[in-house]
């Protein structure tokens, strides 16, 4: 567990220290959300209707694009080789990195999402609920994206390839995330069922993601 904590802390520290890495995701999220009204017009009623969808799409893109270099830098500077000589299995090490990414990239997204919801005229009483759906759903995005980040190392590519590989896999998360958010705002469908499924997706990804990502990395490093 000590190794897990050490790796987690190192990645958090690097994200905070290197180039404001932790804030880049939040900035990207902000920009995506701000661009939308320029495309659909400043009509508050319309923005209020599509607000949760925009927040979810922006959050998803910010999470996944920030994952791009998760393993690549460790692979390039030899850290990944050493990580594999540690006393914890690669699956756990990979999970530690994913948790660090979630803490430094997704948590800021969740924190600023009510503010952005306000700008999109999402109902004030629903802002907290929308943030809650992001809080519950972003672990799924991170841990699914993890597999893509590992494959990107194997294929020595990144950026768009990662998005192409991973975005289709995250469709269920998007569906139930937006469904839960909409249920919180307008009803009449209850908030519970889609939110429960969202949590289940996150839990399943947290278990399965590291296994698949570790397998991809083992293959990548041969």
């Amino acid at each position, binding site marked *: 567990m000590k*190794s897990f904590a050490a790796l987690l802390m190192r990645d958090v520290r690097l994200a905070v220290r290197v180039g404001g890495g932790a804030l880049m995701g939040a900035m990207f999220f902000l920009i995506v959300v701000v661009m939308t009204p320029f495309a659909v017009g400043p009509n508050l009623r319309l923005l209020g209707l599509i607000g949760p969808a925009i927040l979810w799409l922006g959050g998803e893109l910010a999470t996944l694009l920030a994952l791009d270099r998760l393993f690549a830098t460790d692979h390039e500077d*030899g850290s990944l080789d050493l990580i594999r000589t540690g006393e914890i299995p690669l699956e756990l090490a990979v999970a530690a990195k994913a948790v660090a990414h979630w803490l430094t990239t997704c948590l800021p997204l969740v924190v600023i999402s009510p503010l952005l919801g306000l700008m999109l005229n999402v109902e004030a009483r629903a802002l907290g609920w929308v943030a809650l759906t992001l809080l519950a759903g972003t672990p799924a995005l991170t841990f699914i994206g993890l597999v893509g980040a590992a494959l990107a190392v194997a294929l020595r590519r990144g950026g768009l390839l990662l998005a192409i590989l991973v975005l289709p896999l995250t469709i269920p998360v998007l569906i139930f995330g937006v469904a839960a958010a909409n249920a919180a705002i307008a009803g009449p469908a209850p908030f519970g069922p889609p939110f429960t499924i969202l949590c289940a997706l996150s839990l399943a990804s947290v278990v399965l993601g590291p296994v698949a990502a570790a397998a991809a990395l083992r293959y990548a490093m041969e």
Partner: protein
Amino acid sequence: MRLQAENVACSRGGREIFAGLSFSVHDGEALMVTGRNGAGKSSLLRTIVGLVRLTEGEIRLEGGRAEASVAEQSHFVGHDDAIKPALSVRENLVFWTRYLGGAADVIAALEAVELAPLAALPAAYLSAGQKRRLSLARLVAIKRPLWLLDEPTTALDSVAQQRFSVLMQAHLRDGGLIVAAAHGPAGLEKPRELRLGPP
């Protein structure tokens, strides 16, 4: 303790790198792997530590901790130093010692590679040789019996090579094992030689 390789074969990308390789290394003994570029020196080291899968044969570390894999009992020094420029010299070493094994006297290890005065400096300021020394400091900080060294002295000047040679001799005296890929003697006293590739 004994490192035992039996009839080992490895191929990458459909190309056979080496096959039918058998050797053993006892505690207090150093094995120098030589051969021309592309003969498979690096691949052999990566195979021993388990980063590359064997296509045939078996590699064991006998007499070590039974439940631990070879990787967990080895220090692997590859071409890259695994140093994060944004962290300070001390932070870099502290991370690897915590990750690889737990409590360690980090300052003593930094003194052994003559980096103690720079402990607070971000690693971005280090030269290539200093980075390599920082990378080697973890071998001193965390005790592991098997050292797998892939041309460890390339970036080092003659003084630093001398220091590292002393560290390696001390490790062998303590009953450690060293397998090093190198072109020259690399500071080892009378190492056994394993020649890869066509003679």
